[in-house]
């Protein structure tokens, strides 16, 4: 056990610091059986697994094991559709179940995406890096949902699972009839031969005993009947009648409730706590001190018979914290530091082509601007929570998590059990956005449950704790410089970013030994070093800073700020060149036909160039992220009181092809509204080492009344270009709105949230 844990840790280190090349040839070339059954697979009577990806019930229902977690993005529909297509089952018979934890369901695609190469780089180095990193992902075996990778990762294997199961069902029918399998046909859950037919449900027991074909033939996409349709989501009905179960809804017999207060200053420790008054309060059972770990903050937890009682008792605690070195941390000083670094420090180079610095110091006119964004909280609607029971050497966890495998690994220590004694249940996530990739609440809940000696406990953070103890989208600042060529195109471009590293942050929280500045975190400069625009001389660098504020993955990660920097500045460059911002971009995309088509689609559908009322403007922005290309045109009205009202957003996306166009459109709407909240409202600021915002009034959200009309147009470029959709809708909206504000008012806003002077 110890040995295997050490190996895992080393593997994490290898994967996360990009040490993929260290992995030996044996592992590299070892074929992986992705259709096997999960370890310990057990199913109810009358149901059989057919490969590790689906079970067929006596009633004909097809239950697909979904390896990714549903947090709103639609994976419990899109992934079963892949299986259904090749299985030839009736889509109405589809059900889903979240897959158990097993390396079979690992997400290697997400890990492979972490290599810092441009998406259009298909050189040998980039290829080897991606393949190596993919292998590391397979070896790590982590089930994780993120990086808009679920459909891309499932695309091959889940279609194969459907095809393999179909072949096994056909094999069983053919054997029963004594005919050749090749002569049998399948349609809507029935195998037929001549005038004989059998339903899948009648064949499943025999089919499960058939050999699993490893490379089953897949359909010609021209024959798709399920993939490509706007099939209704399988999770929607339960989300309209209150029956959908989230982590917070878990009820275990005998369960108690815990509330928590964490040290208000990052990195502080508990000095002393007098819990006498709290313990005397109604319903209070226990008060626990929780030490700071690399994963979680120092805290005091109250366990009671009701969460309300636990929460009320927190107010009666007499707590003193050692605030430590960060007690004076404040946003103004941080901004000053970043500005200084921007001026003086050289960053790590993410892309250098030509002689950008020479070109930018030559005689030509150089345009220059500074952009910045603040820290942001995720503010998932479901506050952070985790339910745990530690009993008889076993630990059971119920948590809505983006990384259930990590839950298993991270809970074991504080629960005091071996990793293989941890069972993880994964209900729906009430929003994820990267926040639920974190393990802080898991470590805390496991630690509390261990001390409750067999009594299950649900730990629930208040909204205030959530907002003040998030792993924030990094604050970032950028300086951009540009020189034009004689034809009005871009000759040279220099983009320097200052900020923290999300990947470094999460690595330090999960496995401190593996954290290192040597790691080149792609996410810090994504959306900056990988642009499709023609820029013959360019330099993109990132100055890494360490700050006590913990940072983590926030929907679209580095793209969330780099798109604002790049597309805002590009708009300035266009205007200074006296060019239309759409036409200017279009000209720069002459060598990038997919990007150009997306841009053109958005502009056309938005009526770019048509007249608008006074104080109204259109802005355009384009961003490629997670293998999808998105352009948005925002139509903005600026009120006499300087309020910005976004009336309409037209969005075009090329995600290759849409597995479910309805879900793609919904994800574009979702990404846009999420990004709009950041553009118009979002800012986490610090004073005296504390986060100043605490709940929705001080960290406000776009509401229905402020929500624009949104239309999405899907640009088709083929299955070979499959891209993600959960995140790519977010990056372009802030610059599109800022550019529209400029069009409406002539004021250039270079800082989020947007505030008109």
């Amino acid at each position, binding site marked *: 056990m110890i040995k295997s844990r050490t190996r895992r840790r080393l593997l994490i280190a290898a994967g996360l610091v990009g040490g993929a090349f260290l992995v030996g040839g044996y592992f590299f070339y070892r074929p992986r059986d992705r259709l096997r059954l999960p370890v310990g697979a057990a199913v109810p009577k009358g149901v059989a697994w057919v490969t590790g990806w689906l079970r067929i019930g006596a009633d004909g229902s097809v239950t697909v094991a979904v390896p990714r977690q549903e947090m709103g993005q639609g994976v419990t529909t899109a992934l079963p559709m892949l299986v259904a297509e090749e299985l030839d089952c009736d889509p109405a018979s589809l059900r889903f179940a979240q897959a158990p934890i097993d390396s079979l369901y690992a997400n290697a695609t997400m890990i492979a995406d972490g290599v810092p190469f441009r998406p259009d780089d298909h050189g040998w180095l980039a290829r080897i890096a991606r393949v190596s990193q993919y292998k590391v992902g397979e070896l790590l075996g982590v089930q994780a949902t993120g990086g808009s990778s679920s459909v891309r990762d499932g695309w091959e294997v889940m279609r194969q699972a459907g095809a393999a199961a179909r072949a096994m069902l056909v094999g069983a029918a053919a054997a029963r009839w004594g005919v050749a399998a090749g002569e049998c046909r399948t349609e809507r859950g029935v195998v037929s031969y001549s005038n004989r037919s059998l339903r899948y449900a009648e064949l499943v027991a025999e089919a499960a005993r058939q050999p699993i074909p490893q490379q089953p033939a897949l359909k010609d996409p021209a024959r798709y009947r399920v993939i490509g349709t706007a099939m209704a989501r399988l999770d929607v009905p339960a*989300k*309209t009648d209150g029956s959908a179960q989230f982590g917070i809804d878990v009820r275990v017999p005998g369960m108690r409730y815990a509330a928590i207060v964490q040290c208000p200053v990052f990195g502080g420790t508990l000095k002393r706590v007098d819990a006498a008054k709290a313990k005397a309060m109604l319903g209070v059972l226990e008060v626990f001190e929780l030490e700071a770990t690399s994963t979680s903050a120092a805290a005091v937890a109250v366990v009671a018979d009701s969460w*309300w009682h636990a929460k009320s008792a927190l107010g009666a605690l007499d707590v003193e914290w050692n605030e430590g070195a960060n007690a004076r941390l404040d946003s103004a000083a941080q901004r000053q530091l970043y500005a200084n670094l921007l001026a003086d420090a050289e960053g790590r180079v993410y892309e250098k082509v030509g002689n950008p610095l020479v070109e930018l110091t030559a005689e030509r006119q150089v345009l220059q601007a500074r952009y910045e964004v603040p820290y942001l909280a995720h503010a998932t*609607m*479901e506050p952070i929570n985790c339910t745990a029971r530690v009993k008889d050497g076993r630990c059971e966890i119920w948590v809505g998590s983006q990384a259930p495998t990590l839950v298993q690994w991270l809970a074991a220590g504080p629960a005091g059990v071996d990793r293989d004694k941890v069972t993880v249940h994964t209900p729906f996530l009430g*929003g994820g956005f990267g926040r639920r990739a974190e393990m802080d609440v898991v470590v805390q809940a496991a630690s509390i449950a261990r001390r409750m000696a067999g009594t299950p406990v649900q730990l629930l953070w208040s*909204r205030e704790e959530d907002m003040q103890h998030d792993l924030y989208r990094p604050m970032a600042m950028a300086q951009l410089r540009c020189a034009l060529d004689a034809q009005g195109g871009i000759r040279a471009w220099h983009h320097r970013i200052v900020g923290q590293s999300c990947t470094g942050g999460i690595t330090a929280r999960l496995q401190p030994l593996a954290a290192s500045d040597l790691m080149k975190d792609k996410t810090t400069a994504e959306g900056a070093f990988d642009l499709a625009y023609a820029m013959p001389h360019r330099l993109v660098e990132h100055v890494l800073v360490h700050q006590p504020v913990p940072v983590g993955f926030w929907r679209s990660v580095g793209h969330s700020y780099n798109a604002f920097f790049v597309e805002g500045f590009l708009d300035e460059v266009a205007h200074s060149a006296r060019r239309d911002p759409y036409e200017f971009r279009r000209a720069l995309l002459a060598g990038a036909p997919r990007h150009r088509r997306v841009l053109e689609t958005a502009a056309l559908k938005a009526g770019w160039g048509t007249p608008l009322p006074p104080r109204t403007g259109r802005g355009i922005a384009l961003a490629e992220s997670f293998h999808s290309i998105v352009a948005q045109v925002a139509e903005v009205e600026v009120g006499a009181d300087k309020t910005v009202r976004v009336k309409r957003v037209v969005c075009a996306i090329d995600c290759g092809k849409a597995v479910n166009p309805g879900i793609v459109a919904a994800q574009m709407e979702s990404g846009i509204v999420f990004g709009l909240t950041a553009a118009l409202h979002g800012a986490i600021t610090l004073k005296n080492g504390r986060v100043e915002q605490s709940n929705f009034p001080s960290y406000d959200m776009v509401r229905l009344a402020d929500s624009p009309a949104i239309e999405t147009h899907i640009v088709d470029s083929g299955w070979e270009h499959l891209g993600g959709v959960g995140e790519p809708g977010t990056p372009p909206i802030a610059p599109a709105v800022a550019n529209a504000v400029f069009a409406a008012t002539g004021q250039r806003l270079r800082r989020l949230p947007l505030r008109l002077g």
Partner: protein
Amino acid sequence: MAKLMVNGVERDAALEDTAPLLWALREDLGLTGTKFGCGIAACGACTVLVDGQPTRSCVMPIAAVIGKPIHTIEGAAARKPYAAVREAWIAEQVPQCGYCQSGMVMATVALLEQKPMPSDADIDAAITNICRCGTYPRIRKAIHRAAADLAKGAR
């Protein structure tokens, strides 16, 4: 111990009557469809109907609702607009993560009871709940659809 009239049934809540209704519903009565979001009536995830009025149960003391009819999402079928609202929610494929949707649905049921054919401005004023997944454009469409369906049914 307070006696509450929830979804047409009289039920005992173990919590003292100064505590918010939300926790009695979720913990004492097992009605977890009503959600906790902010604890300060800012987000609307905890919206239930009290006497037909949309009420943010996270700040509503139990004492204030004793004897009044309370409807949660689990008992929403007893309210006339609910079936149409639910159908519209499914037709427009509104929910994503789904966490805020109980509150959205209950706020909509209350709106349609009071204004069977709401304008966009009525919707803006009534639906102030927060959805982090950005389902707002679909909620607006679904409300109009439900209103139209209800009007057809009434004719």
